[in-house]
């Protein structure tokens, strides 16, 4: 199978949230207890990603130059071409954060995951969420169980408007550029996001109908934290049998720090959303 991509043409999105519900249905995720949607932009619920919510439609209401816009964005894992979360995953020799390189899919192997939170820490968007009950990392799986069986991801299947398209990565890139051109012809200022981000790009490609500034919680220049290299060096011995007790202690302390760091970052994301 060829490398896969998924296109989010946010111009075609009507925020019906079929993708959000289909994701929960396929992944058997329970509903969250929510209250009135006080998130900025109106209808959004729940407030952010969580172990129960891998896929979330965000709403942005803005009035600019006398023109009101209500923009939508499907938020979830980008499935990076060169995923920092996989590099950061301390589990060796087989990583818990699994990179299916052929398909371009990144997913959590729950059998192996130790719930340390390094994936969240080093994800440029802090997407993976640690489930405190199971102590496992959770996130969009790109419906790897569907894709490897010849089916499209549940969100793409459910999308009624053609906003979410699953296809070979090359085709997705082509379609993104076509959509961008179409919007430019209408005098809009669209942006493709995901093709070149992080240098090597991601398998989730956005076509955003408005400039990125209209999506304040989406980093303009996402970056992998510079200390990932150092962190990886630190983790190297974890896979070896000659690990000294002292070093194990050190690594575990670091891992615990990461987990706490993760909590801070997750709440930071929520703050942005609010």
């Amino acid at each position, binding site marked *: 199978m060829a490398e896969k991509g998924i296109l989010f043409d946010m111009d075609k999105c*009507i925020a019906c949230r079929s993708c959000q*519900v289909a994701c929960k249905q396929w992944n058997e995720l*329970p509903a969250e207890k*929510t209250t009135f*949607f006080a998130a900025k932009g109106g209808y959004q619920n729940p407030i952010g990603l969580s172990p129960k919510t891998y896929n979330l439609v965000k709403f942005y209401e803005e009035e600019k130059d006398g023109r*009101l816009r209500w923009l939508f964005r499907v938020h979830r894992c980008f499935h990076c071409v060169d995923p920092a979360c996989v590099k950061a995953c301390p589990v060796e020799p087989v990583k818990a954060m699994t990179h299916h390189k052929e398909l371009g899919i990144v997913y959590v192997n729950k059998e192996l995951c130790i719930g340390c939170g390094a994936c969240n820490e080093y994800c440029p968007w802090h997407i993976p969420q640690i489930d405190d009950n199971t102590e496992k990392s959770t996130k969009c799986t790109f419906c790897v169980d569907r894709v490897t069986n010849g089916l499209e991801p549940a969100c793409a299947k459910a999308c009624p408007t053609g906003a979410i398209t699953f296809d070979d990565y090359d085709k997705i890139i082509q379609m993104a550029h076509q959509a961008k051109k179409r919007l430019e012809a*209408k005098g809009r200022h669209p942006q493709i996001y995901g093709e070149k981000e992080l240098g090597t790009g991601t398998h989730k490609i956005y076509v955003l109908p408005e400039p990125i500034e209209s999506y304040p919680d989406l980093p303009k220049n996402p970056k992998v934290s510079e200390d990932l290299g150092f962190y990886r060096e630190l983790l190297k011995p974890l896979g070896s049998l000659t690990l000294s007790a002292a070093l194990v202690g050190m690594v575990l302390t670091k891992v615990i720090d990461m987990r706490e760091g993760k909590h801070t970052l997750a709440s930071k994301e929520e703050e942005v959303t609010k």
Partner: protein
Amino acid sequence: MTNHWIDIKNADCIMIIGSNAAENHPISFKWVNKAMENGAKLISIDPRFTRTSSRADIYAPLRSGTDIALMNGIINYILQNGLYHKDYLVDHTNAGFLVNPQFGFKDGLFSGYNKSQKRYDKKSWQYQLDEKGIPKIDKTLEDPNCVFQLLKKHLSRYTLEKVSNITGTPVEKIVNIAKTYGATGQKGKSGTIMYAMGTTQHTVGTQNIRTYAMLQLLLGNMGVAGGGINALRGESNVQGSTDHAILFHILPGYLKTPRSENQSLAKYLETWTPKSNDPKSANWWQHTPKYMVSLLKAFWGDRANKSNDFHYEYLPKVGANYSHISMFETMYDGTIKGLICMGQNPAVGGPNSRKERKALHKLDWLVAVDLWETETAAFWTDPEADPKSIRTEVFMLPAAGSVEKEGSITNSGRWSQWRYQAVHPPGDAKSDLWILDRLYKELKKLYAGEGGQFPGPIVDLNWDYGQGEEPDVHRVAKEINGYDLTTGKLLPSFGKLKDDGTTSSGNWLYCASYTEKGNMAARRDPTDAPNKIGLHPHWAWCWPVNRRIIYNRASCDLNGVPYAPHKPVIKWTGPETKWVGDVPDGGWPPGEKYSFIMKPEGHARLFGFGLADGPFPEHYEPLESPMKNMISPVQINPATVIWTNEMDEIGDADRFPIVATTYRVTEHWQAGQMTRNNPWLVELMPDMFVEMSKSLAKAKNIKNGDKARIITARGEITAYAVVTDRFKPFKLNGKTCEEIGLPWHYGFKGLAKGASANVLTPHVGDANTMIPEFKAFLCDVKKEVG
């Protein structure tokens, strides 16, 4: 829909008005997006900026209840600037027809108004006839008494400034819409209008739709690909329910319900079979006797024959208004003693629902058939109710959901699609068919054993759906299609129906849906027709006779040449090969018969004399309005019934200065029983809310997320406030007017509970249909303290 969902992709311009299609019909945006990819423009007209508006090229706000003023203004602009399709007007509409010179309009009233009866005598709303009894036509459209000139005169009052003052829509927006949509009047272009309950649920609902139909006729947009007047139905099978006569004024297939004065079949047929002296008019309803007699044969089988008038006397005769509001008024006054409520939840969905809940208190018995225990089924647990004083006996019958039974549904595009049972219903839940079958059989036993007032209609009923535990739904579908009773074979189409008792058909419009060739609704061949406009004629089945776009003879000129050769619906290819494309609206060669075959005059009506409240749409204010009518001294629709009973209070603008409207959201469905019990949907929309402008919120000291109290003359509710730029105050003749919006899904049962918006809405309906005015009423808003 005159067209269908897929056909939206063929439009050059799409106007969504009185509808929030993106939220309530998400699938429509598959086709709206396709049209837009091909360069179509999208116009969204709504008091509130919605998820539909977010996709639109042009968004225009209008104050709820002022659609006619806006559309009349747009049409006036189109007429003044010559944007209309003149050939189409002359060949396919009654634009050139001469009207009785007695017809007139003065001070907001058409000729023939009877003030004491609040009704029109429509005698003067007629065509001038020649010596053969055929309407006179001036094809130059210049005669001052022709429809076109009368229309121009009527609409000339709707100047841009006046319209803007009434609607609150800025003048430049009106002009922009008129120009953009008016561009579809060019030959070969088409525009579609998508509308829903935002249009219909007004005291002028029918006339609202008339304005759309007239706009479409003026631009030559009826019968063509990417055109039409497209009602987006609010439930998956509303179209099917309507076709099969869920409403009191029609029998299956839109045959008229017998009125009390139609005491014999002959009298009925004489009254309701239209006549035409024009040999070029197909006058399709001339076949009424065949359809009616075949229906009676389907109802009462062998027992119905010529000598007993096919048991016409068994049909109830309508002597009063049996619409929803009227029914609940009658229940409230204690006349109606029992109610069977199947899949309906008026305690949440009914207008003035406090009153409707109280009306349920007066019943001796209530049967509620639903998937969940609804607010209606549990009305006695309403926080306002005192169970000790209620004597109603309530029967709760659990019903099967749509995927738990087999049968057909008919979508908005008139496609009847067969569905299969996916899973068995849980517990004791049963299909509607099972419930009705058992109910009928018990009733028959009782009537057969005990006689009673009028046992005939029940005891003699033709009821033959097999001996199994579950009635045979295929037998029902076959009965609807109809049989040749001389051979016992299923009929191929309604062209074979007869008025002599040798054929039966439960619904003539569905004759051809289940034939000797099989169940047409079950077909699943996605191949498109050669004209490649997305007709997909072998996918399911569409009434009538699988015609996917109705009035399609009007897509061609009088030589059978399509106005839009690049997207032809039908095309005449000569006497040998005839019409190709869609099933034509009658197979006659072009020019031999007029194109609008359902009208006795064969032409579509710009001048529509069949309605209760006037042949041209005229703006009247909603029952509750913040403004005096600026176009005439007549404030509200003069032909509408106003109820003045207990609990029918009407609010005025002094006490209630804010306009309110109601709507649905994607995440919930109707009165909420199916979605407010689904945790995933409750997660998305957990609480009742009210949307309001920033200026109103500021004036009332309400912040986003605060609780607000909304008060009308009929009740009050609390809801979370969504303070948003998507609502803006209207400028009306120099005055500022605020509007708020409320979803109407919530109630006191289910996982997600919340106040019901319909506690606030009035008990008043449209002059023609009595559909309630849910969409425009007056309220006040306060911050909820504590």
